[in-house]
């Protein structure tokens, strides 16, 4: 494996200042119960990437992980090892379902600094957990696959899913936001919000097979009928995978709004992002991705219909036992399309009014990341664009690292606290934690002192967060 070789062969010396992006060395899933006896070790392995690795090495690596977990369990029975740092690599362990272990290892640069890179540990542990959540969203739990078709089926599903998913894993662009796994909410006035509510309720009524609905605008969430955790991962899928895939055709103007070829249909901008591409094609396939939600209790299997008009996207989730026909899709298109088009332009208009009212848009002196654990609301002025492949931040990576360090400090204690760090080149980094909310501010003010920085942050809180209880 090229990546492995590169990881092993290069150190910080070789690259001087330049940092090599971290690469995925291996990723495997195993269950120690499946091969408890000697000679059966191979049975434990459910998935192994890269698959080209020689069988014995796979077994060795799995065995090593098993041993580490067992060994650390003696010290902390409830919280066994989460990660392992070696000179050559780092490994992250996660046991999402009982006895099912997921392990990810990436190349590690031997650290010569005294500072531990805790940020990265937390980031990659989060990435690993996200891998499972994403798998579960589209495949259900490991256990369910076992029940449905035994190890064979589970292996098939894992292979099918992770083979593609791992290619989209860009570890180098992961940062604090991956730890939060937050949801960006679209700011909206009450009246427009109520109109959207009304729209959703009406659509659910007229398309009576819809079980849940989610509504997004500009890739930001406005309404979720799903529970928070399910929405979190679905949001991740929509914003990092499905929507970006459809940006290109939009930009190319391929979806002309004038659809004169559809008789009796009002002119609208609606189209399916999942499901049939062309409703006029009688052979169009109405196949929608299946998703699994509420896996802890009701365990529901749903079809995911994503329909979009301009910047507004609606996800209709219908029970998997119901098979949406082309007629249904046409009906949905004719009901939802015109209304969603009107609603999307309403939202856009209202958004522009609100933006104008909020005053001048002069570049502020600071950048911030906000996250609320309670509703997973996330807001970042640090990131210009965040997709799995690119994390376009407007600040130096070192500052991002400081943010991660502060976050680790916050995780260690339950109390509210505030940390102010003086970074290089006139930068100040402030972290505040108050009642399950976290705020990270990066200020750049020449010759500012601690008191001035504190004042600045107070001002920021007063303007940006005046309607929430945020202790200063």
């Amino acid at each position, binding site marked *: 494996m090229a990546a492995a070789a590169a990881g092993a062969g290069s150190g910080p010396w070789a690259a001087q200042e330049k940092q090599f992006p971290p690469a995925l060395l291996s990723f495997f899933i195993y269950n120690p119960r499946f091969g408890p006896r000697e000679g059966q070790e191979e049975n434990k392995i459910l998935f192994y990437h890269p698959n080209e690795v020689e069988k014995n090495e796979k077994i060795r690596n799995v065995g090593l992980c098993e041993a580490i977990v067992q060994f650390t369990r003696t010290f902390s029975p409830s919280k066994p090892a989460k990660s392992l740092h070696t000179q050559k690599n780092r490994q992250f362990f996660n046991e999402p379902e009982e006895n099912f272990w997921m392990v990810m290892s990436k190349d590690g640069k031997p650290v010569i600094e005294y500072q531990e890179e805790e940020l990265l540990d937390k980031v990659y542990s989060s990435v690993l957990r996200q891998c499972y959540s994403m798998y579960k969203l589209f495949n259900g739990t490991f256990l369910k696959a076992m029940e449905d078709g035994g190890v064979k089926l589970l292996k098939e599903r894992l292979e099918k899913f992770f083979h593609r998913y791992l290619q989209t894993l860009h570890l180098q662009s992961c940062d604090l936001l991956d730890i939060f796994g937050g949801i960006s*909410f679209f700011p*909206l006035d*009450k*009246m427009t*919000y*109520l*109109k959207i*509510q*009304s729209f959703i*309720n*009406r659509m*659910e*009524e*007229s398309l009576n097979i819809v079980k849940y609905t989610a509504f997004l605008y500009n890739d930001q969430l406005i*309404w*979720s*009928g799903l*529970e*928070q955790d399910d929405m979190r991962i679905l949001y991740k899928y929509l914003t990092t995978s499905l929507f970006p895939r459809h940006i290109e055709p939009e930009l190319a103007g391929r979806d002309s709004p004038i659809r004169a070829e559809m008789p009796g249909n009002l002119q609208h901008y609606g189209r399916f992002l999942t499901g049939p591409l062309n409703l006029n094609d009688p052979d169009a396939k109405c196949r929608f991705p299946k998703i699994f939600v509420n896996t802890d209790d009701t365990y529901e299997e749903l079809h995911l219909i994503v329909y979009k008009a301009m910047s507004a996207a609606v996800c209709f989730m219908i029970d998997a036992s119901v098979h949406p026909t082309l007629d249904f899709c046409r009906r949905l298109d004719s009901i939802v399309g015109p209304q969603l088009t009107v609603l999307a332009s309403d939202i856009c208009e209202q958004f522009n009014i609100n933006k104008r009212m909020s005053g001048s848009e002069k570049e502020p002196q600071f950048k911030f990341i906000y996250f*609320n654990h*309670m*509703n997973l*609301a996330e807001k970042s002025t640090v990131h210009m664009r965040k997709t799995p492949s690119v994390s376009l931040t407007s600040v130096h990576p070192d500052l991002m690292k400081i943010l991660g360090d502060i976050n680790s400090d916050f995780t260690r204690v339950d109390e*509210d606290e505030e940390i102010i760090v003086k970074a290089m080149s006139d930068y100040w980094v402030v972290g505040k934690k*108050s*009642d*399950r*909310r976290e705020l990270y501010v990066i200020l750049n003010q020449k010759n500012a002192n601690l008191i001035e920085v504190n004042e600045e942050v107070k001002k920021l809180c007063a303007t940006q967060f005046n*309607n*929430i*209880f945020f*202790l*200063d």
Partner: protein
Amino acid sequence: MGEEDYYLELCERPVQFEKANPVNCVFFDEANKQVFAVRSGGATGVVVKGPDDRNPISFRMDDKGEVKCIKFSLENKILAVQRTSKTVDFCNFIPDNSQLEYTQECKTKNANILGFCWTSSTEIVFITDQGIEFYQVLPEKRSLKLLKSHNLNVNWYMYCPESAVILLSTTVLENVLQPFHFRAGTMSKLPKFEIELPAAPKSTKPSLSERDIAMATMFKRFSCLSLPSSWDYRYGQLYVLFLRHHSRTSNSTGAEVVLYHLPREGACKKMHILKLNRTGKFALNVVDNLVVVHHQDTETSVIFDIKLRGEFDGSVTFHHPVLPARSIQPYQIPITGPAAVTSQSPVPCKLYSSSWIVFQPDIIISASQGYLWNLQVKLEPIVNLLPDKGRLMDFLLQRKECKMVILSVCSQMLSESDRASLPVIATVFDKLNHEYKKYLDAEQSYAMAVEAGQSRSSPLLKRPVRTQAVLDQSDVYTHVLSAFVEKKEMPHKFVIAVLMEYIRSLNQFQIAVQHYLHELVIKTLVQHNLFYMLHQFLQYHVLSDSKPLACLLLSLESFYPPAHQLSLDMLKRLSTANDEIVEVLLSKHQVLAALRFIRGIGGHDNISARKFLDAAKQTEDNMLFYTIFRFFEQRNQRLRGSPNFTPGEHCEEHVAFFKQIFGDQALMRPTTF
């Protein structure tokens, strides 16, 4: 046809009078709505009965010849009796005034009096074939004074007491109508107008018959925003209704009623055409702002509501009957007389009888049977006859007694069996709230006008009257929504959708939503464990901030931990709940946070040291206790120049505790200079 199908009925307690017969003449006065039964020219008695007064007035008068017309002035002060074509006799009914009759002859030579109308308690108009004469009656002098007169050829006349307008038919074809308006001693001539007569065969002379014309006022307004000079403001809008029978030669579909609007100022304008789609004998009533057209041939009636949307052709609006034609509800003549004969079965009354005489606005008289009825509209049956809920609401909101019917329509459309779709429910809510908002606005501008002191300068400024069409949040909550959310069989999705739709509608009309509606939403969401939905609603401030709501959220914390944060945020936004915030934080043992908060808003000089020290002690965190204790020592120093607590602060126990843990020497020493 079931009973629930009839939407028109005769009033239950009619005015009963002696049947018309050769010795008993019956007269009806449209102004006072009184029936006069005159026996033998008055010699053997006159009995006057009105719809409101159950005590008839009876008196005798000398038989001085056949009575042509007999009417009381308003408030029954003076009786006027016409016995000849030249004179009218008067008799005072005012206590202490002479009851001797006095007579007034019409001023115009060779004119014949067609009739007279009282326009007030002492003002009377004579209508002659050559014009009109407006008199003031001076009862104490037993004489009349001519105020004004006008000469023109009159074929017939019609009087609308509600608007005090007399309509005179002039010209050979009788179709040019000249209105006059009377008010407080003045007579004003309004612009005349012509009624277009339908084409008639050459052989017959077309003419406008008095029978085909009616006058009625509709849509009294209660708003204080209208112009005070207009009578529209006080009496509603005056319409002249013309029943146009289409001649058989023309290939039209039937007769129609043409409505001319007669404004106080400006010309009369043809506004509405009511399509009857049938021919024959018709009679008109106006009930509850509805035009009722009775059709004798089929013995049915139809109703028209000109406020409902019709087909507008650029100048007039065409209307069709609101509902299918129905008979007036069968009526049983009540049995009167001795109790012994009540076992007799009641006699069904012949409806649409040719002996019926119809008067405006809502009166039907059967002179041969001796009954005067008020025609009434029954709203309940209409609910099922009008399937379009939006139109039904438009219709009901214009009716006087609509409140309970509307509320029952709302309950019905939310019931499982008759459940309406959400867009329909939204339309209904929007219509209710549109009416509600109009009233709130009128109230507000009234309040502002009162505040600005306009009430004295403008006597016409009246407090807006709240009609039954104003259904506020408490009405809808009490009669519709609270019962609706209790229904177990109702899918919660629908319940929430309906509540949100009502809240959306209120917001759309910029009506502040009452907190009990929000509580209903929260209650429903909590019952179904839909906390995340609740969270999202709060996040977008759909449920408005209030202290009760914040407290409700606090109580939900054990089921849904984020409720705590939501509650604190809400208290913070209220900005009047700082004490509550401190209490919440202290109850969570967040003593330092509470102190920092109160210091942040500058209230730390007035807080009770004991309360904070108590809370700090409870945490069993000695360092925290130390910090809090030191803070108050410093406060004491700053405020009183000494770090010691005063006896009034009741902190002795905490001082002792502090000493016990940290030693005497840890106490702050007073700074002295």
